[in-house]
């Protein structure tokens, strides 16, 4: 709303139909709503503002002071505010007040109201992102302020196509949301879809990015995230350049990137900074670890309870000697281990970092070893659970790695009931599910289903950037020259 009003550079001076009393009543005579009368140049002005939202200093120096010294009555020319607009109705005036504007009313036959920007900002300093760390990437993370986040994005995405569209969501309390895309790259179909979905949100209030995510994602009954939540400007910017759309929510340091497909969650900014074969290798490791984390517990259960004939004989003996002391079935054994690991994980989130290290050693090492020696779990089970959790930590995206936890337990159950056959059925089920998912109309499991070899270049592989001349299906307008590297190794020079 705020930004939309900026379009009126010359506000229309029509008669406003608001009164101070109505505004005060509508704001319930809240104590921090202050008004002040100023006489200047034979004219009475009333300034109305919410004390807690307004920067006192700005109000004093930029509005009140010039107002008292005013020679003529042209407010638009005399006051030094970033944004001045006329308030045409009570509703606009109240919304402005709640955004930290102060309302200047010129008393007279025709009461005129102006909204002047004097909002106080409590932005914290831009700091390094905590969850999505990189080795060589930028050390900048998003903050809680909408304007600052847009600034962070714009500084790394310099383009005239950079488009910002603002929405105010929520019916009882309002939240400002900005939709950002590169106009010459993004698919207009997707933008239309996103806009339509955002406009149709009629939630009472927006608490976080999760509320918006719930309202705009294609499929609700699925463990797979269809929107990428990130706290990194460089990652968002790279996605914008690929033709995706970013959603910034005021008050939230996480930015929503959409549409996200399965492989989007395995990309990190580091892939593009390191050399291509290293980036490809990391991607492969991540994908591999995803599969491992998903099916390793199930495989273990199938091995030790059904198909011990497929593991080497020596391993059978050592596994069996450890398993014979365990009174539980392998499934129960792994469940105990997984559950205690989940407890450890949940507990360590809220601990201060200095305690967390000690806690990890006590919880992980001591309890783990003691559990094996007490005969509650076997060595094999401990190794499998440890490997699984390590693989799930490899995932660069938190939500994608939590999909492993949701899918892992049913797979373990299937493996405990049917062995290998159960795993096959379970994995097939997941595959069918993945192939049915869409993200804003795009196939979710994209380079695999439907099979598209061209898109492998930036999904499971990360080919050198001059070879990526045709990007994924999500950006039909994005075209790079076929050979962007305009030189060749000098072949005329003889090696000898």
């Amino acid at each position, binding site marked *: 709303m705020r930004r939309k009003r900026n379009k009126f550079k010359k506000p229309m001076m029509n008669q406003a139909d608001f009164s101070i009393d109505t505004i005060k009543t509508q704001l319930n005579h809240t104590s921090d709503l202050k008004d002040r009368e100023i006489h200047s140049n034979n004219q009475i002005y009333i300034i109305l503002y919410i004390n807690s939202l307004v920067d006192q200093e700005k109000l004093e120096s930029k509005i009140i002071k010039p107002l008292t010294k005013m020679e003529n009555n042209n407010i638009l020319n005399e006051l030094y505010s970033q944004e001045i607009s006329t308030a045409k109705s009570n509703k606009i005036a109240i919304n402005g007040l709640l955004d930290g504007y102060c309302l200047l009313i010129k008393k007279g036959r025709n009461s005129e109201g102006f909204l002047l920007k004097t909002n106080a900002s409590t932005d914290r300093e831009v700091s390094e992102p905590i969850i999505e760390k990189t080795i060589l990437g930028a050390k900048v993370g998003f903050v809680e302020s909408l304007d600052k986040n847009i600034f962070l994005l714009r500084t790394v995405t310099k383009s005239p196509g950079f488009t910002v569209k603002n929405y105010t969501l929520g019916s009882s309390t309002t939240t400002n949301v900005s939709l950002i895309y590169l106009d010459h790259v993004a698919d207009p179909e997707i933008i239309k879809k996103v806009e339509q979905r955002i406009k149709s949100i009629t939630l009472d209030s927006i608490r976080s990015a999760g509320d918006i995510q719930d309202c705009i994602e294609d499929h609700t009954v699925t463990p797979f995230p269809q929107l990428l939540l990130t706290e990194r400007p460089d990652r968002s910017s790279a996605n914008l350049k690929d033709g995706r759309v970013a959603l910034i929510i005021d008050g939230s340091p996480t930015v929503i990137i959409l549409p996200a497909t399965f492989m989007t969650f395995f990309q990190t900014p580091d892939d593009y900074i390191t050399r291509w074969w290293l980036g490809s290798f990391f991607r492969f490791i991540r994908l591999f670890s995803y599969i491992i984390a998903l099916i390793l517990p199930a495989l273990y259960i199938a091995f030790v309870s059904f198909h011990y004939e497929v593991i080497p004989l020596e391993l059978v003996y050592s596994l069996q000697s450890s398993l014979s002391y365990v009174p539980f079935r392998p499934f129960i054994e792994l469940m105990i281990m997984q559950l205690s690991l989940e407890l450890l994980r949940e507990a360590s989130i809220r601990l201060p970092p200095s305690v967390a290290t000690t806690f990890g050693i006590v919880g992980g090492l001591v309890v783990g070893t003691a559990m094996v020696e007490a005969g509650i779990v076997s060595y094999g089970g401990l190794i499998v659970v440890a490997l699984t959790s390590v693989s799930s930590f490899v995932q660069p995206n938190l939500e994608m790695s939590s999909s492993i936890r949701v899918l892992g337990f049913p797979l373990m159950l299937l493996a405990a009931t*049917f062995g290998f*056959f159960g795993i096959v059925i379970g994995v097939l089920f997941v595959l*069918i599910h993945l192939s049915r998912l869409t993200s804003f109309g795009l196939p979710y499991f994209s380079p695999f*289903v*439907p*099979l598209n070899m061209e898109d492998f270049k930036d999904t499971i592989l990360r080919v050198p950037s001059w070879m990526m001349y045709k990007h994924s299906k999500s950006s039909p307008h994005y075209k790079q020259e076929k050979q962007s590297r305009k030189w060749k190794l000098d072949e005329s020079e003889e090696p000898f």
Partner: protein
Amino acid sequence: MKVKSRFSSVNLFIVLVQTMIGVGLLSLPHQTHHAAGSDGWISILISGFFIQLIVLLIWLLCIKFPNLTLFDFSKVILGKTSGTVLNFIYIIYLLSMICYIFIIYADTLKRWILPETPGWVLFLIVFVLLIYGSICKIKNVISLFSFLFIFILFLFFITFFVYGDQSIDVRYLFPIGSSGGWNILKSTSDSMISFIGFETLLIYFAFIKQSKNISALKGAF
């Protein structure tokens, strides 16, 4: 009813391979050997020839009715009543094929992996999977098939391993024709069952991009 979605002839090829390679292939050597002895390979070749013939006939039939599936053009050819009867028979045939595949599947699983599991559990599991997989757009089914085709390619690697075996000798095929022509022909019908699936072409053909008729035929072969 005209179909709207389209897929290429490569996809048709992939879908047909996936429909044909199935549980029937596992029982193929046993069945042909049962009837024709060491001459089973001849009957497989013959059945392959027949299949090509039938596919040609289906192709000639289907190009006359672009964008229409069997369920629509049968009514055009045979009239409303007998067309509906034919469609009904076709559906019954497909259902009985599913039953046949289910029976072989359960039999194989019971023999090799899960001897003690009751049959209805196995049926239930695969039935749920089948229904979940088939309640979606044909586009999704085709794209899933094209992904799973990668795994079919692994079968070729297995074939290479088999040929590395020392005990394989071409001379075991001799004497050719020892089991008699009649037995070979009889086992042809057995081996046809494991190649079943090509008759779904009657439906799939409507979805092919019509601009390339020849390439559609290529895909079918």
